[in-house]
């Protein structure tokens, strides 16, 4: 190794990695081979860091334990967005003693030019480890492996070419949206517009963590939910439509001719979860649109023949999260349909997001996700707090327990009929 410790290890100096070496064979691209490319990269500043990183990782493989601990590292002006990592075995692997990650928000829908990717590589080659993950589970580009000293420099360069840090800690987190409008015929709203309008309205909550815990938005253009929003997001926006699905009966006939009646019945008609489909004797399709739940199955199978209706927007489900602390939760339908068409519609989506973030900030306990808050206080109290009326689309079925005080049932029923009358008059 050279005196300043900045050049690649001489061949004899590389940490032996017999266990990791076993992950270089086989047909799938090997991250170990990639790490070694960085270790062996001539006079690059990160080569010694990646040699010691490989050494520490091999040590983990030997001991079957992790050796990173957290800490506090951030950039000027922000409180979050950097995941600090300090090595617990720095004495043995000093060059990777600091190995922080910058979480960076990608373009909505993960679109890049090769030129843009090269710019990201150049920044990270100069200031970081040369290792980038596309993408983390929240949706960030993860620039993995940076010394404390270089975090600010790397951020300044990334920020100056249009990138901003994502979320970490008790804060609004980086969001994701599906490919949607850009390349999908199922898309029921403008995902880019929704994603950017909502997240960019609340950047203060992302960059200066002050919420009880994390809060995630995710945007899927239809019920196929390609960004896994219902499971993973506190606020899931799932595209859907209210009017009848569109049926091209000639294309239905062509599908039946090509695939056969048995396949059409077995794989489409019988798989409809609400028995809303019927194949006519002339091989056209009947759709009971009032029974259809917009699950997307028949559209997925017969995507030339069937498509979403024209009255499009999104359902909003609130409270999805992973296991800690109370166990896994999925989002609950809170808004069965929000029209998403005009600029005003998207402003309403942002305003509703704000209402939920405010509720969360004011009412959640420390380290409690909003789904847990809803469980703790009950859905009726939550709805009252966010000024949303109960709707039968919120439940699988009404309550089965009689343990409830109902002396104001008649007044509540009157409110329901008043709402129905108002909606009918609109």
């Amino acid at each position, binding site marked *: 190794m050279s005196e300043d410790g900045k050049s690649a290890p001489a061949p004899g100096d590389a940490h032996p990695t017999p266990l990791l070496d076993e992950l270089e064979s*086989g047909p799938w*691209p090997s*991250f170990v081979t*990639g790490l070694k490319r*960085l270790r062996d990269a001539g006079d690059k500043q990160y080569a010694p860091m990646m040699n010691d990183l490989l050494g520490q*990782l091999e040590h983990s493989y030997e001991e079957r334990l*992790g050796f990173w*601990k*957290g800490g506090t590292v951030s950039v*000027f002006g*922000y409180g979050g967005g950097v*995941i600090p990592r300090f090595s617990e075995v720095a004495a043995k692997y000093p060059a990777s003693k600091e*190995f922080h990650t910058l979480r960076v*928000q*990608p*373009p909505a829908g*993960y*679109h*890049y030019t*090769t030129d843009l*990717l*090269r710019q990201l590589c150049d920044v990270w*080659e100069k200031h970081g480890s*040369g*290792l980038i*993950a*596309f993408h983390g*589970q929240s949706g960030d580009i993860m620039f*993995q492996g940076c010394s404390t000293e270089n975090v600010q420099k790397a951020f300044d360069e990334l*920020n100056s070419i249009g990138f*901003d840090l994502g979320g970490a800690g008790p804060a609004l987190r980086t*969001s*994701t949206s599906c*490919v949607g*409008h850009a*390349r*999908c*015929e199922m898309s029921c709203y*403008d995902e*880019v517009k929704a994603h950017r309008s909502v997240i*960019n309205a609340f950047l203060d909550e992302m*960059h200066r963590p002050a919420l009880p815990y994390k809060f995630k938005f995710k945007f899927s253009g239809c019920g*196929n*939910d390609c*960004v*896994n929003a219902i*499971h*993973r997001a506190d606020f899931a926006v799932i595209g859907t439509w209210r009017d009848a699905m569109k049926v091209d009966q000639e294309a239905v006939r062509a599908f039946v001719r090509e695939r056969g009646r048995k396949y059409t019945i077995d*794989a489409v008609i019988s798989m409809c979860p609400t028995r809303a489909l019927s194949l006519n004797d002339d091989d056209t399709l009947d759709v009971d649109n009032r029974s259809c739940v917009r699950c*997307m*199955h028949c559209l997925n199978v017969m*995507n*030339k023949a069937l498509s979403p209706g024209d009255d499009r927007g999104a359902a909003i489900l609130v409270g999805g999260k*992973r*296991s*800690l*602390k*109370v166990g896994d939760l999925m989002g609950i339908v809170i808004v069965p349909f929000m029209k998403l068409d005009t600029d005003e519609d998207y402003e309403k989506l942002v305003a509703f997001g704000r209402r939920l973030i405010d509720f969360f900030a004011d009412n959640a306990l*420390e*380290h409690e996700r909003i789904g847990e808050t809803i469980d703790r206080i009950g859905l009726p109290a939550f709805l009252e707090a966010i000024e949303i009326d109960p709707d039968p689309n919120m439940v699988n079925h009404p309550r089965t327990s009689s343990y409830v005080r109902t002396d104001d049932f008649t007044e509540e029923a009157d409110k329901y009929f008043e709402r129905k009358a108002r909606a009918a008059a609109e």
Partner: protein
Amino acid sequence: MSAAPEMRRPIESGVPDPFPFMHPLLRKNYGQWAWHDRPRPGVLHHVAKGGDEVWTVRAGTQRQMDVFTIRKLCDIGDRFAEGHVRFTTRSNIEFMVSALDKVQPLIDALIAEGFPVGGTGNSVSMISHTQGWLHCDIPGTDASGVVKSLMDMMHAEFVKEEMPSRVRITTSCCQINCGGQGDISINVQYTKPPRINHDLVSKVCERPAVVARCPVAAIRPALVDGKPSLEVDESKCVCCGACYPPCPPMQINGADSTKIAVWVGGKHSNARSKPTFHKLVVANLPNNPPRWPEVEEVVRKILYAYKENGRPWERMGEWIDRIGWPRFFELTGFAFTKHHLDTWTGARKTMNMSAHLHF
């Protein structure tokens, strides 16, 4: 003393606008797509209402990529595609091209450089995963290594579309389960209560916050050898590891006590059935780097039982709903134990309260 250097204030630009980077045909036909088909595994063909067509070639990556790999993908994108790419939720890279005759040379170039082309339709797509020993501060196992081992085994199913329906697999390195729900989920399962370093607890941990973090109220403040610390009621402890992140001296990991469990039947999509959580199949598998052969064997058995027995469009969980859990355990050869009976909140709703029985 010199003045502190002036710090650059961040430009709070938020989510970058994707339109400058989007393939021109995607930009032109934004919101105007009519239908798509898949000419072969790994290739999508989208047709816009106005007649424009775009072909997408999808390839697997290792997710954790060195700059040389990324630049190689960029070279391929410049030479064989049109300079515009995107990534999927599962870290596959997609190259969009405007002409069919560019598809095969692009596929050939990707395969020649070691990037598998596939992950579309009824394939096993790339595993959605986490960080593990490479970068996480609390991991029970590695993520990249487990995924590399499994994707080597399942490579043949990534490049084909021969499964009954799409297969989405996840891994997680602790019970927080950052990897999420999957048709098959390979997750760390701790088997022993935390080992507490009482010298450090009061220095490192905010004790009331740690007490509050426990889902079964098994942690209480205690004076141990005259030092303020925490103790765990081990008869209550469910070994979830929730106390470890806020209190690293409560070490949940052990080289031999950190195990791996495999779960099945998680589903994100609303297609046909509603979204579901995954369910336990096997626990107590050894955490065995560098290739986790015991885990690989379990995943292989589940995957191929599903492949042989699932009907078209049935996801893993929907297949099991049809054939029943007795048949699932029979076909895969795994044991059904008392640990498969849920004991957590809402457990009763997971029990069979009917005379619907499978024989």
